[in-house]
């Protein structure tokens, strides 16, 4: 199968890139002075967050396309992106928390970025719950498209609100802006590329699973209904 081969190439390529990234993170990138070695979480944390965001953007675009074209393909792509976005956001929240513990001495702070990630996670988990609650395919696709659009419109507002909410209050521990050395940037770029490839792989396989389910339903329908 051609798809299979492409998948394999993608998985191998992203794994190689990821291993390179890990190698570079530990042996090439300089250790950050203030935060020490924990700062290295950042090289995974940021690409994860970026890919999660990309997922939600793809879901938004697919939602619009579904409503315009009524092609179930866009629903499948959209739902695959949201699911992967939620997986990535979960990992963002966990890595963020593991960073916060040694640096800020707490598992969780209501820091703007953490707060907005959590709200996004809630919105898109709600999307998945909605998906599970609607039986009929076209109805489900329409509702999920609407939810993906509304959710994505909310993204900038969520970021804005989390930021404003905090800046009014004195923040006890401010997140320090990280001075990026050139070496750090190149490591980050490789890590980003690795995650992008991995993300593409996941989207491909995840949406193919749905396409296959669709195909199975059609085949079963033909079987049951005799000749079509």
């Amino acid at each position: 199968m051609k798809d299979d081969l492409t998948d394999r190439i993608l998985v191998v390529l992203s794994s190689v890139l990821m291993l390179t990234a890990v190698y570079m993170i530990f042996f090439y990138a300089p250790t950050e002075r203030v935060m020490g070695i924990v700062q290295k979480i950042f090289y995974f944390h940021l690409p994860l967050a970026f890919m999660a965001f990309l997922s939600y953007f793809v879901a938004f675009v697919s939602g619009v396309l579904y409503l315009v074209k009524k092609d179930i393909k866009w629903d499948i792509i959209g739902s695959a992106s949201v699911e992967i976005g939620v997986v990535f956001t979960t990992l963002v929240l966990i890595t963020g928390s593991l960073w916060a513990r040694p640096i800020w001495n707490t598992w969780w702070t209501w820091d703007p970025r953490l707060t907005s990630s959590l709200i996004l996670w809630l919105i898109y988990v709600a999307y998945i719950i909605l998906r599970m609650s609607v039986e009929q395919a076209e109805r489900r696709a329409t509702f999920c498209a609407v939810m993906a659009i509304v959710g994505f419109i909310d993204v900038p507002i969520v970021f804005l609100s989390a930021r404003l909410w905090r800046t009014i209050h004195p923040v006890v521990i401010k997140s320090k802006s990280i001075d990026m050395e050139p070496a750090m940037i190149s490591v980050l770029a490789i890590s980003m590329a690795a995650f992008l490839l991995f993300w593409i792989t996941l989207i491909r396989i995840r949406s193919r699973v749905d396409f296959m389910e669709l195909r199975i339903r059609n085949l079963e329908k033909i079987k049951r209904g005799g000749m079509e």
Partner: protein
Amino acid sequence: MGATLVILRKDLLIEIRRKDSVISMIFFGILLLFVMNMAIGIGRKVDPELAAGILWISILFSSVLGLGRTFSLEKTNRCIDGLLVSPVAPSSVFVAKNLVNLSFMLISEAVIIPVFFALYGDNITVRLAPLLATVLLLNFGFSSVGTLFSGITAATSRNEVLLPLLLFPVITPLIAFTVKATGEIFAGVPFGEYSSWLRLMAAFGLIFSCAGYLLFDYVMKEN
């Protein structure tokens, strides 16, 4: 516009006859005020910002009750089919239902807010005009998102459970703005210092009322 008013009048007439939406909203709101009093420790004096949180939690949770009803009303006897075959635009239905929800919220808030002041009013400055503005702006944003989502959940089998699950994550920014603004009103801060929160609330309402207006067509046709 004509159809909007016709639907609005019909829904209000039905509510006047049945009264159950508004009464359950008011009762649940007051119930929540009591429960929250227990949660923070009976008799404890609350600072303005916490008080604002208590007020809005009560109002928001009670308003969800009314929200679910407005749309399920059209589903009994499939009245919604009557609207769908008619030349009425779904967006007029959206505006009408939005106004219905706004009025239900206003009526229940007219009872819940005075009760709130009676229970928690000790440390709170009362400024009616800005408070009213906050209430109206919150209602606007809440019911715009809520009307759209109640259209969605009315077509699912888990209407009551699903609606708050979809609604609350999306309106968290609005809740944040509202609580912030109200906290400062309660603290007696001059208007200039919290007016930006009100502007943000208005922006939220505008964005989602436009989104709802455009998206409601698709939602209603799936009902």
